[in-house]
């Protein structure tokens, strides 16, 4: 089942139900009616799009918007809703990180198409700017050769085998939609350092991104980074198996 990573924040019940119904046709979604509930939801769930009315009664709007972006991460989209589009300073909301500000009342068909196009745009951005670029080497041969110069091939080989075992043990503990415990975060930090030292570049970049997202409590960014981290682990393991004697030979 897809997780509910679209959040609707609307204090008017009728409108909230309409948005739920319309967006629910595209993607599972959650809804809340106060800013406080929204922040609680965002803090505990990976959210990729927040649709929210700009006029919430219970929170200072500016603080709320800033916190929302901070909690969700850069990849999360904010879409504002207002019944006074003429009076709203749209460039100001864009400067806060809003992708769009839509006018209420909405036209259902247009609204669905708009949300759908935003989600597609988000997917394309992800493909265009992956957390771990495909061009990065799985193993930096220069680092490997430096280690060979300073030790023996047998020792270095064993270090790489131990390293991938450590990675695979961590992999089993990583749950993409859940921010990690302090213990798991420490293990990610260790993998980040070790991968850099050993020249496992894809793992290093993915671990760095995972650690950073987790420390900033950005759950959706963490989920994405963990996906890349697990792929990088699998690629590295395959690489070690492919070159049983000397890496990159």
């Amino acid at each position, binding site marked *: 089942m897809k997780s509910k990573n679209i959040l609707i924040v609307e204090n008017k019940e009728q409108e909230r139900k309409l948005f739920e119904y319309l967006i629910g046709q595209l993607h599972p979604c959650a809804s809340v009616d106060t800013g406080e509930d929204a922040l609680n939801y965002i803090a505990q769930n990976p959210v990729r799009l927040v649709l929210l009315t700009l006029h919430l009664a219970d929170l200072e709007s500016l603080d709320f918007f800033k916190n929302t972006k901070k909690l969700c991460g850069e990849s999360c989209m904010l879409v504002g809703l207002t019944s006074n589009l003429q009076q709203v300073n749209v460039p100001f909301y864009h400067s806060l990180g809003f992708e769009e500000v839509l006018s209420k009342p909405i036209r259902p068909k247009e609204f669905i198409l708009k949300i759908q196009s935003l989600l597609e745009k988000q997917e394309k951005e992800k493909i265009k700017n992956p957390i771990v670029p495909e061009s990065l080497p799985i193993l930096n041969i220069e680092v490997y050769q430096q280690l060979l110069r*300073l030790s*023996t091939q047998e*020792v270095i080989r064993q270090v790489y085998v*131990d390293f991938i075992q450590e990675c695979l043990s961590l992999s089993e503990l990583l749950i993409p939609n859940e921010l990690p415990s302090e213990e798991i975060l420490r293990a990610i*930090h260790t993998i980040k*350092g070790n991968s850099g*030292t050993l020249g496992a570049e894809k793992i*290093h970049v993915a671990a760095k991104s995972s650690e950073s997202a987790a420390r900033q409590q950005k759950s959706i960014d963490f989920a994405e980074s963990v996906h890349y981290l697990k792929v990088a682990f699998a690629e590295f393991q395959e690489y070690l198996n492919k070159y049983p004697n000397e890496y990159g030979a």
Partner: protein
Amino acid sequence: MAHDQMKILVGEDSSIIINLTKSVLAFENYSLKAARNGKQVLEMLAEEDFDLILMDITMPQMDGIQCTKEIRKLADPKKNSIPIIAISGNAANHTPEDFRKFGFDDFIQKPLNYDLVLATVKKILS
């Protein structure tokens, strides 16, 4: 390799880094013993003399900064003046001045570049 075999203690919780460092330093005729946390570093230092400590900052139970502060408070002048090199994965959080204030003689940033590790060890022990 003109030096007599010098004894280095590494405080590091990752067995991968311990094994790698041990191998690289042995290649240069240094002997290396490892402690997995700051408390163990203090225990081993109490029992044995070392020429240098490589100290990871992030360790369980007692971190490298706390451990270094404890070492600098020891009564034995030989122990409390031992050269200590910090190894930090979050060096961006501290300035070189911070490391000196914590009691370190030098610091190396993770990911480790072993040419730099060796150069720093040789410089401190020369």
